């Protein structure tokens, strides 16, 4: 349990009539204290004392199967990836201590961008320090005052924050609703700049966007299209390029945003594009300019991993098998799931409420299984979810073990 969050209130003496700026967090502090007072193990203070493999760790003293890491392709312990990182650490040092546009672009950053351009078959690639910053930077920079952003209401926080940071008019539409999107596009004043923002896989329920239809409509209305493929890179599509590839719309999207912190197995973010003027982003995009670049070891591991993911079709096939097996198994056990069919490597188990969700999470962790507990406001429709993300390195027997832990926990909590 983190000491900082659970310390008891102490009256703070303040001169004048200033109010405590932290008073706005009182509701969430009370909610959290109420939950923990029942003896519940804190779902948001888990510590991994030792990481044994992409699928196993020692968590809070217990050997645990990891089913909530987004480490879809299990690249974190790939020997080639680790070797590349070690070599870069030795050759280039521990960090760049500088911005990409000043002293922070090393050979490794260029090689990483080369790997991305090849992976996606696009003309330009720009590496950011995190995926969050990639969305923040690209969205806030390209959509300015007088422009319109049309986006799915279930978009990731980094997309919303990118909208908030820019000055464009922000127009959300109902999740994955093609008609609602088109209606809004039609109403935008003539001549205004338009950016449609979609995600390949939505991470809360693990559902996929109807990109074929949506991208076609966006193009018909003269909008630029940005697709966040954070949860599909490396896994979905014949070459692992994401839902855009699977939907056959690679050539129609203007920007693909992605991350290194999921399938790639390290940290960082990127944007790839064929826009002829794309390189100017490096000078005008503040979250790219005003932060230090990724350490040499990180870009070296990323570049190696991306190149290996190009040839990862066997792993992709095994991950699909895992996803199908887990989805069917959980459904057969009687759990309510976020999608009727498995659409990605994320399977969301819908909990009746936060209390039972937290109790279920605790029963799972004590049974040796880690999943993500997702709660409002991050979730759609204020749902409490146990979000499972599978890994290509989960063996068939591990998936069977996962299902038996779910069965025992579900019965113990009384959900099934």
């Amino acid at each position, binding site marked *: 349990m983190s000491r900082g969050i659970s310390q008891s209130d102490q009256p703070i003496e303040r001169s004048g009539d200033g109010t405590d700026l932290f008073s706005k967090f009182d509701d969430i502090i009370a909610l959290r204290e109420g939950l923990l007072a029942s003896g519940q193990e804190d779902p948001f203070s888990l510590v991994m004392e030792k990481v044994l493999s992409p699928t196993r760790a020692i968590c809070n003293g217990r050997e645990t199967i990891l089913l909530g890491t987004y480490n879809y392709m299990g690249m974190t312990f790939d020997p080639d990836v680790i070797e590349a990182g070690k070599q870069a650490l030795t050759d280039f040092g521990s960090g760049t201590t500088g911005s990409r546009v000043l002293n922070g672009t090393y050979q490794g950053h260029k090689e990483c961008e080369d790997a991305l351009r090849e992976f996606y078959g696009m003309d330009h690639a720009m590496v950011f320090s995190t995926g969050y910053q990639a969305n923040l930077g690209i969205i806030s920079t390209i959509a300015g005052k007088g422009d*319109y952003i049309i986006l799915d*209401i279930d978009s990731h926080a980094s997309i919303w924050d990118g909208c908030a940071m820019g000055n464009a008019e922000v*127009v959300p539409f109902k999740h994955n609703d093609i008609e609602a999107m088109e209606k*809004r596009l039609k*109403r935008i004043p003539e001549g205004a700049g338009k950016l449609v923002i979609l995600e390949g896989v939505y991470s809360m329920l693990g559902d996929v966007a109807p990109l074929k239809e949506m991208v076609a409509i966006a193009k018909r209305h003269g909008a630029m299209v940005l697709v966040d493929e954070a949860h599909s890179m490396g896994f979905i599509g014949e070459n692992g390029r994401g839902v855009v590839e699977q939907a056959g719309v690679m050539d129609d999207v203007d920007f693909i945003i992605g991350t290194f912190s999921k399938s790639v197995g390290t940290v960082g973010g990127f944007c790839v594009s064929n826009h002829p003027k794309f390189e100017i982003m490096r000078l005008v995009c503040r979250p790219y300019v005003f932060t230090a670049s990724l350490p040499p070891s990180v870009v070296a591991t990323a570049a190696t991993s991306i190149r290996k993911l190009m040839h990862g079709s066997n792993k992709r096939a095994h991950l699909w098998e895992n996803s199908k097996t887990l989805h069917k198994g959980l459904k057969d056990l009687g759990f309510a799931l976020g999608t009727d069919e498995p659409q990605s490597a994320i399977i969301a188990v819908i909990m009746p409420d936060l209390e039972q969700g937290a109790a279920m999470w605790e029963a799972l962790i004590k049974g040796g299984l880690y999943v993500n507990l997702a709660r409002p406001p991050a979730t759609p429709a204020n749902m409490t979810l146990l979000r499972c993300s599978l890994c290509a390195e989960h063996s068939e027997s591990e998936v069977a073990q996962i299902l038996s832990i779910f069965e025992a926990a579900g019965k113990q909590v009384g959900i099934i």
Partner: protein
Amino acid sequence: MDRTAVDAKIRELAEPFNKKGVEITEGTTFANDLEFDSLTVMDFVAEIEDEFDIIISMNQQAEIETYGQLVDAVTKLQAA
């Protein structure tokens, strides 16, 4: 459509969302009096947008706190 007509139409659209049957006046607030959460706001706004064939962007929504402000904004937007 004049303000009175817009008011009448929005009142009609708001009814299914006003679960507690709160009396709606010009000064009624969506967040506090009607207790609309973000999802309710989205559905409610979408209905108004479709009815009047307008866009009420998030930026414009941020300026609207009361029922009266909403009627004013929609009256202006649908006349444009």
